[in-house]
């Protein structure tokens, strides 16, 4: 137990900070994923075949390629790409991107592909009559989206989004390969310096279980909130 003490003698405070880092990366990645989904879901539902194609390439490639490979692409290619863009604007110094940003972007793009599919499915399963009724009532496109589509979509999407959240949370463990100190990386460091990998990796597993358990509880509450009236 003294291995988990807070302060200089144990790894308690380090692991606690690492857990907060995991939560922070997961939430950031999820939000980045939502913004990607915000762009690609309309493309998927668009009438234009070429726009469909773009969105389909995004979701198919991301869902068919291992997460780790995507992370390596961002880790090794990220700063190169940014430097290339910067050099077009005449900035030629070396730019290093923070591991947090690279990591949450990589996981965010992955999570966005899953969210896109979830939102597409949710919007498609809203009854057509709802849109027709909105039109008949003379609602503007904007009002139709915020008052009719969005609330119903959220209700249908939340159970599947909770799966996406679980996947995203677990995927953040892969960012440890880039050196960002989240649960997995911190356990690796602790295991290396105490030579007690069994304990620290098992403890990491417990932390992840705790995170998934607590987030499920929270999401269930949201689910109840959004399905009132049903």
């Amino acid at each position: 137990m003294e291995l988990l003490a807070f302060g200089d003698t144990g790894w308690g405070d380090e692991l606690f900070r690492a857990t907060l880092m995991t939560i922070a990366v997961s939430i950031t990645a999820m939000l980045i994923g939502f913004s990607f989904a915000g762009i690609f879901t309309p493309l998927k539902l668009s009438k234009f075949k070429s726009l469909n194609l773009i969105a389909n390439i995004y979701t198919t490639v991301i869902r068919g390629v291992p997460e780790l490979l995507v992370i390596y692409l961002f880790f090794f290619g990220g700063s190169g790409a940014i430097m290339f863009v910067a050099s077009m604007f005449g900035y030629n110094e070396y730019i290093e991107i923070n591991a947090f940003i690279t990591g949450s972007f990589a996981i965010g793009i992955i999570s966005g592909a899953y969210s896109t599919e979830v939102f597409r499915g949710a919007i498609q399963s809203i009854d057509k009559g709802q849109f027709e009724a909105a039109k008949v009532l003379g609602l503007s496109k904007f009002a139709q989206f915020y008052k009719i589509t969005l609330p119903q979509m959220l209700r249908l999407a939340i159970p599947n989004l909770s799966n996406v959240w679980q996947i995203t949370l677990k995927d953040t463990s892969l960012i440890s390969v880039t050196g960002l100190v989240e649960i997995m990386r911190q356990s690796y460091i602790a295991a290396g310096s105490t030579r007690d990998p069994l304990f620290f990796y098992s403890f990491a597993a417990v932390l992840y279980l705790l995170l998934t358990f607590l987030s499920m509880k929270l999401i269930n509450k949201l689910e109840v909130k959004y399905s009132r009236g049903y």
Partner: protein
Amino acid sequence: MINSFPKLLNAAVITLKLLSVSLIVGLFIGLLFAILRLNKNVFIYKFAYGYSYIFRGTPLLVQIFIIYFGLGQIEYLRSTFLWVILKEPYWCAIIAFALNTGAYTSEILRSAFQTIKPGIIEAGQSLGISNKIIFYKIQIPIAIRQSLPAYGNEIILMMKGTSLASTVTLMDLTGVAKYIISTTFKPIEVFIVAGGIYLFMTFVIHNVIKFLEKKYSFN
């Protein structure tokens, strides 16, 4: 880009090996735990539920690290014959993958067993077929057919999961891709080739499952 292709293709063979062995072992584990989940005994049921909860609630990376780095720490294990297996990263990766996919497969099969209409089992009973034969000849084939689409997804997820073998020094497709990227600093080209191979495998798996679904459809 062209030079790296044969190397990556060779590595893809290791990925496929890891995938197929862990899927076969995982299928047996999944079937076993799905049957345990249907058991009326609370302890057996809870045990099977706990297994699937733990393996589905933690990242695969943690599971591999516990098995590869963690188990080697137990002195007792080092003296048994198990050590022959556990000191090899290849087998550790397969054990982790099989246990992981086993947990997901058990959930898929369990829900398939539970959606079998009771009438089908009753029909079997009224024809005088023994419960054992009903289970093996009626329930299992129907459950397998029911779970094909979900299992197809699981195979693809597992294929992506095998990329984690590269974290325990195995040179699978992702491992080799990372090695080439870090020596040539051409991340985009390598990503396109390695990603293309993965996508091709996804495509093949997807179509095989689709074919099986059609072949074993009820109509």
